[in-house]
């Protein structure tokens, strides 16, 4: 169960505002974190606290394939993004880097406490329950393992152990 304070955004939050192009010339996660959401909310990185969640509208993460977008949110401390819908590349990237995401249409105000049950696809805000789209099991497993790299390492290790 994820529980955190909500930051609320609208529809079509694109990856250029999540992490502007000018910060992509590095692979330093701290730089991405410091500029997370800068295009729409320049103070976001100083206000966000570890474990906060983002609640947004349709097509979250549209635009570029830059994985730096979910990485910026993850390293800024965001524990989960709940959106009415996600742009597909962002959605894949988020799972691959171990940033939990859930599709759900949630009524929520900034600062509300949001409880997210990824396993069952349920979000709870102000004692109201919202049913989201549960992730397929294989994606949940990748998330639980901490992302695709960790997941593949786990599989390789299992394979190796079996062969021993």
């Amino acid at each position: 169960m994820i529980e955190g304070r909500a930051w609320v955004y609208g529809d079509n939050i694109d990856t250029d505002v999540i992490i502007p192009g000018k910060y992509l010339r590095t692979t330093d996660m701290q730089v991405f974190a410091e500029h997370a959401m800068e295009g729409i909310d320049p103070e976001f990185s100083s206000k966000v606290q570890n474990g906060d969640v983002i609640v947004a509208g349709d097509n979250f993460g549209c635009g570029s394939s830059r994985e730096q977008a979910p990485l910026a949110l993850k390293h800024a401390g965001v524990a989960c993004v709940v959106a009415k819908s996600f742009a597909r590349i962002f959605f894949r990237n988020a799972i691959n880097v171990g940033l939990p995401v859930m599709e759900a249409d949630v009524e929520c105000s900034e600062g509300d406490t949001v409880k997210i049950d990824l396993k069952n696809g349920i979000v709870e805000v102000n004692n109201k329950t919202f049913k989201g789209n549960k992730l397929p099991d294989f994606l949940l497993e990748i998330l639980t393992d901490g992302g695709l790299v960790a997941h593949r390492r786990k599989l390789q290790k299992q394979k190796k152990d079996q062969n021993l």
Partner: protein
Amino acid sequence: MPDNSQPMTISEKIMSKASGTNVKAGDFVFADIDRAMTHDITGPLAVKGFYEIMENKENPKVWNPNKIVVIFDHQVPADSLNAASNHIMLREFAKEQGILNYDVYEGICHQVMPEKGHIKPGDLVVGSDSHTCAYGAIGAFSTGVGSTDMAAVFASGKLWFKVPETIRFEIDGELPDNVYSKDVILHVIGDVGADCAMYKTAEFGGSAVRSMSVSERMTMSNMAIEMGGKAGIIEPDNVTEDYIKERIPDYKLDSEWKSDDGANYSEIRKYDVSNLEPQVACPHNVDNVKPISEVEGTELDQVFIGSCTNGRYEDLEIAAKIMDGKKVADNVRLLVIPASRTEYMKLLKAGYIEQFMEAGAIVESPCCGPCMGGSFGLLGDGEVGLATSNRNFKGREGSPESFVYLSSPATAAASALTGKITDPRKI
């Protein structure tokens, strides 16, 4: 080859071939990748991910170096020490693994990949760039992925996909003078919105699309992502076959690579473009599209003609002909960047580069330029730009306080002459 007993879309056929099973929209598959492309912005994280995945292996090797292509295009020539370091890292990776690396020389990945014959109809292609959907213009299923997915492809040559549903865009009619495929795709995106084709293939057909050149088709497929599309496919035909044959002489198009009659579309949308006027996408969303009559006269600080969307010979020829020896307006900067070295050379030989220079344009060597706002040619606070590229999100071309409009090369050229958004039919 897929079993033909059930009518299939071209996307279902390609996914069936790539996964070795008969699939339909909605199925999850584990598919073999025919071609993978990465570039200087997303490549470094992909390489890092690859070595992390392979950390227990001595001397880690990619699954098949012949199926991977590396191209530097976003920050070339290196515009900072960080960019130079990224280039060194990718250069060494490509050399170590025996991967073809076009380095800083050839131009924008989405132009270079088809231009150099790396893409064929029926291929399943992934690139770590969202505009990888561009290769759908020649009948490939081609889609953008992130760096970690690319790392997994480097390691295994496979990736999971959800076989997408398909929206068919049936676009008929003959385009009026000075109206081009860019106007068509902007009009469609404005009509359906930025999320209409999310998780889906946008399949473009109809008489207007059939009569387009490969260059014009690339503009259409390139922008499928701007309506959320996973792919933007145009079924291959004799136009496609001729294009491929120029690159792969013994190529013969397999008639299998089309959607069957009775294929299952989630939606069919019809357009007649016979009376379409030039279209402009207004700040700060690509689906904020208006006919030019509603934005004419908007004052500009910069015009950018180039990008993977509209930086080909045909695009720049249209622009040069509209400018026709006239000068760029005093209040505006015109930046011209051909999409590839090959296109640049063709323009040079035809005399168009000289014309642009004489008109007062700044002509740069092939690269992404100001599109993405991470390199040069940026817009400052309060500035207004018109570009032939594909995105106008807040801060896309520089300052979050700047404004980007998108148009065809014809509209961009006409506007460069006047310094404000101008209908090319009036020049």
